[in-house]
């Protein structure tokens, strides 16, 4: 999937299988990513587990679990709030669109979580106070989790390399009149950019993610996934100047890390 970390780094990662997205004293979030096309290195999130740890007289321990084609509007035990403690309503699940969009307000830790099902895959967004992000058991062993540290280098996919090869491959193939080995409902680079521009007129990294996803999957739902991810960052990010992120040109550093605009 595409990952925007707490420090506004933007990466496209393989991270196939189960990976920790958040892991601190209050909250654990784990995602399971699966290849979007058999054998593809491109993966998307098919399962998400959130564990809210019990907290003083506010909430009991609560587990939220969503899977492909199943976005429940309640915790695993059927409840919609933090249990029976005095401050139970400081943890609440709200269904925004049945089966497509839920929000979890964890007021006791000043945290808001948005989980969506777009097409068959899940998207996740969170807004969390810095103090809560940093609340880990032993500081020196700050968890190696994706939202904080990003993906390991060997798990990152280089956008630019992908785009340049896919464009040059298309040109070369077109000159020879051959057909591209491609996913179902294949998009050309031009078709993908036109489709993405409909929802994401600013050609930032959300736009580029959209193009990448259409080229790798041929699934137009990924246009909406990028669009909603951008909508969520507009709502949840505290610095409106940093909503758009752009690709850093090569001379500034390796991989596809990006600085904010």
């Amino acid at each position, binding site marked *: *999937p*595409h*990952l*925007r*970390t*707490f*420090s506004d780094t933007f990466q496209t990662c393989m991270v196939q299988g189960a990976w920790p997205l*958040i892991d601190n004293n209050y909250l*654990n979030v784990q995602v399971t990513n699966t290849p979007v096309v058999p054998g593809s290195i*491109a*993966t*998307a*999130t098919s399962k998400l587990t959130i*564990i809210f740890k019990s907290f*003083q007289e*506010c*909430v*009991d*321990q609560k587990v939220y679990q969503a899977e492909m084609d199943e976005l429940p509007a309640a915790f695993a*035990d059927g*409840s919609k709030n933090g*249990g*029976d403690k*005095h*401050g*139970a*309503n*400081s943890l609440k699940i709200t269904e925004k669109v049945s089966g497509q969009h839920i929000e979890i307000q964890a*007021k*006791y830790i*000043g945290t808001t979580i948005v989980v969506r099902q*777009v097409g068959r*895959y899940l*998207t*996740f*967004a*969170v*807004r*969390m*106070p*810095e*103090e*809560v992000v940093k609340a880990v*058991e*032993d500081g020196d062993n700050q968890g190696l989790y*994706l939202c904080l540290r990003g993906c390991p280098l060997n798990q990152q996919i280089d956008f630019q390399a992908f785009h340049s090869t896919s464009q040059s491959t298309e040109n070369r193939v077109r000159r020879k009149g051959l057909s591209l080995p491609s996913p179902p409902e294949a998009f050309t680079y031009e078709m993908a950019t036109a489709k993405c521009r409909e929802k994401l007129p600013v050609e930032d990294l959300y736009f580029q*993610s*959209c193009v*990448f*996803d259409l080229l790798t*999957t041929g699934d137009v739902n*990924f246009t909406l*996934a*990028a669009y*909603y*991810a951008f909508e*969520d960052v507009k709502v*949840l*990010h*505290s610095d409106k100047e940093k909503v758009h992120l752009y690709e850093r040109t090569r001379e500034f550093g390796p991989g596809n890390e990006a600085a904010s605009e």
Partner: protein
Amino acid sequence: CRIMKCNSEFLAATSGPHPQAAEEAPEFCTALRAYAHCTHHTARACRGDLFYHSAVHGIDDLMAQHNCSKDGPTAPPRLRPPPRGDSQERSDSPEICHYEKSFHKHAPAPNYTHCGLFGD
């Protein structure tokens, strides 16, 4: 390593004058699963801790003795309190349960951060 917290929660649930889950009660398995869940979360921090390892072995033994399944609720099903009208929040909800309110008292507004994961 917070294995002692797990131990005390389990003891509180299964012993004392009015245990919620006395040894012979069906809730005993629920308490055991909650205990296993709790120890699982301390695994990383408790690696090498004798109390931790003996707790884990003890849980396995008790689960086998009482024929408890590993899967199942880790908290006793509780009657949900009757909905209190449409009030968004219980007015008497403790201050500690409102991060922003309790923050404002002592310091400027907290810095918020964002993380997102989407697409392929």
